[in-house]
């Protein structure tokens, strides 16, 4: 009998202990919260370190919070989001770029006007994400379209840049011819995996020739591509393509390969690219980065004859972050966005990524191995008038398709005459 009682007691005790342990564990789990973030740019160590730092800072400020960042490349991230968001799933916070307006129209992200501290973000950058009076994502990365060049090769060709670092369109055409004659690829560019790089030279030339107002009208379908000024620019780019400005494998060369083409093998004179170029290039050589002693320089895109705004250049927002409408932790998600946007983090961004940012900062002087580069980048911004937004961020629908097929690839690739290119662009874009 005593044995039976003891057995019963021990069983009850065990049950009670189990309940206590389970309850304790449950309460511990209930206190812990995980904020999930999906981010692009897994292959850019400086950006990975930056965002992980913001995550750790937020965790330190919120005991019990765990910020889990899953790193992707762009294609994988977009594919995962396309599956997760319609199902009401997905992370609390995710990476977006300004051309991805479908997330707004589909209601997958929430307005951030009352969630984020906008006093720390430049107004022009906020505008890139303002639609119908609401702001939908936090801009983090800002960049300008730049024309990088190899200083040694330019010297070898006997060409000296003027004080403004801007050649005229005729001088630029001559430079292309000289480089080709010296068996140097003039412009390292490829459109094998991106819908925009092939249009850098053409788009920047159009901006300078037309000025920001008419250029904006052109991209919004309010100005015909048959406008004589537009045809002039197309004819000039056709001449460049005919003179062998681009590599023979232009149509299949991928973005990362074009960088390597420029600074390593086989080497090229120029590389038109967004200033985010450094995120990939300023990594160790063994990781595919640019050699530390590579003589990189930045020149302005050429001044166009009778250009309405030869001091104009494109300024755009890149990496941005949005909050999933299905998130149950929107306040914490907003806290993560704010943690990435402090002035200190803005300075950290510039000093480690060597790239402009949408976050207001007070960096007066630069240090580190790439300080010279960043000084030159800032020098190229002096007196610049900015047009906000890359063409690919602006055009939609059939116009986007025409832009990708014609302005990005077929035309600079030498596959189309000017009149046909202009006609195809008008069919896709012009609403007049």
């Amino acid at each position: 009998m005593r044995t039976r009682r003891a057995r019963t007691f021990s069983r009850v005790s065990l049950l009670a202990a189990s309940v206590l342990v389970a309850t304790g564990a449950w309460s511990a789990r209930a206190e812990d919260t995980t904020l999930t973030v999906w981010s692009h740019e897994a292959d850019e160590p400086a950006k990975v370190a930056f965002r992980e730092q913001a995550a750790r800072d937020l965790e330190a400020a919120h005991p019990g919070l765990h910020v889990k960042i899953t790193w992707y490349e762009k294609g994988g991230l977009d594919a995962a989001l396309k599956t997760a968001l319609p199902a009401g799933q997905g992370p609390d916070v995710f990476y977006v770029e300004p051309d991805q307006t479908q997330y707004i129209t589909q209601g997958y992200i929430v307005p951030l006007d009352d969630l984020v501290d906008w006093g720390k973000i430049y107004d022009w950058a906020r505008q890139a994400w303002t639609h119908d009076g609401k702001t939908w994502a936090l801009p983090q990365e800002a960049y300008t379209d730049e024309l990088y060049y190899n200083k040694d090769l330019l010297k070898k060709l006997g060409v000296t840049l003027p004080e403004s670092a801007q050649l005229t369109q005729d001088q630029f055409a001559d430079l292309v011819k000289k480089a080709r004659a010296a068996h140097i690829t003039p412009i390292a560019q490829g459109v094998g995996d991106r819908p925009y790089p092939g249009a850098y030279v053409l788009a920047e030339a159009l901006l300078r020739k037309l000025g920001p107002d008419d250029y904006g009208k052109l991209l919004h379908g309010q100005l015909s591509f048959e406008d004589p000024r537009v045809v002039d620019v197309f004819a000039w780019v056709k001449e460049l393509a005919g003179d062998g400005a681009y590599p023979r494998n232009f149509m299949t060369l991928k973005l990362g390969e074009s960088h390597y083409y420029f600074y390593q093998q086989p080497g090229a004179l120029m590389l038109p690219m967004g200033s985010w170029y450094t995120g990939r290039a300023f990594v160790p050589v063994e990781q595919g980065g640019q050699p530390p002693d590579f003589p990189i320089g930045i020149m302005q895109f050429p001044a166009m004859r009778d250009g309405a705004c030869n001091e104009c250049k494109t300024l755009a927002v890149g990496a941005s972050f949005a909050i999933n409408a299905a998130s149950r932790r929107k306040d914490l998600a907003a806290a993560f966005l704010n943690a990435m946007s402090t002035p200190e983090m803005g300075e950290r961004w510039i000093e480690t990524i060597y790239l402009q940012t949408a976050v207001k900062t007070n960096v007066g002087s630069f240090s580190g191995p790439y300080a010279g580069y960043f000084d030159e980048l800032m020098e190229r911004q002096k007196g610049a008038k900015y047009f906000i937004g890359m063409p690919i961020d602006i055009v939609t629908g059939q116009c986007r398709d025409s832009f990708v097929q014609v302005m990005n690839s077929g035309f600079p690739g030498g596959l189309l005459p000017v009149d046909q290119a202009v006609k195809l662009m008008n069919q896709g874009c012009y609403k007049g």
Partner: protein
Amino acid sequence: MAGPSRGGTPGARDASWGTAALFLGPAVALTLVFTVYPVLRTFYNSVHFVGPQNRTSFIGLRNFADVLTADPVFWKAVGNTAIFSVVGTVADVAGGLVLALCLFANAPLARACRVIWFTPVLMSYVVVCIIWGWIYDYDWGVVNLLLGWLGLDWLQHSWLGEPGTALWAVMVAHLWKWLGFNMIVFLAALHALPGDVLAAAELDNCGWLARTVYVILPMLRPTVVNLLILSFIGKMMIFDLVWVMTGGGPLWSTETVSTYVYKRAFDWNTFDLGYPSAIAVLWFALILAFVAAATALLRRRERLEF
């Protein structure tokens, strides 16, 4: 005599509705959710304009009219898909048959060749695309290097970058990937042929070529027909390889109906699913009509196995 199910243990045909529902339920539910609903939704979307946040408005057959009368890229995609489906199918099946006959005839290194020829079937499309992207590269690709080595520099091309060659280059990559599959199917069919018929042909001094043409091929007819139809249907829906290798370019020269539907749905940043749904419905009807016609035509003569 009682059947096996009439004893103490109930057979499959004696199962109650509850048991049947238990076993069939998950499969039926999955089919309804992932196949039936998307198909019905596509039909629904095709007669609607799908606006932001899935707000729809009925527009009747306007999408279909626009597709058929005012969309040159659609017709370009139809043309490309037709070329891919017809030429690719014939090449796939004929090539697979030739390889299978080589192995059946115990050609030298047959075992190794069987493994080598079948290996591409096991590769993912992405890997295939990367390999062929390298092979076709203008500067360092094997094809152009080989042409240069042979002194045929004038034949060097940017194979994926020129409208005249891109579609054919993609087709070759596709052929390379799937040839091994057809080869294995043919090989299985060859080994299943009645040995006495082949032996009789041999006794009659029938040569290798005559035996192949007059004995083996007629007996392989059902397999040939099945593979032709399966291959044709697969190519009518080709997407992955084209998307990764060329994205439909240059200048729409490799655009297929599937890549165009995807672009209209997800790549144009308009998110109107109505128009691409109309294209999908049209294409579905065309494939269905083809399969029905092929089945009706061949039903009396062969038993199709797809």
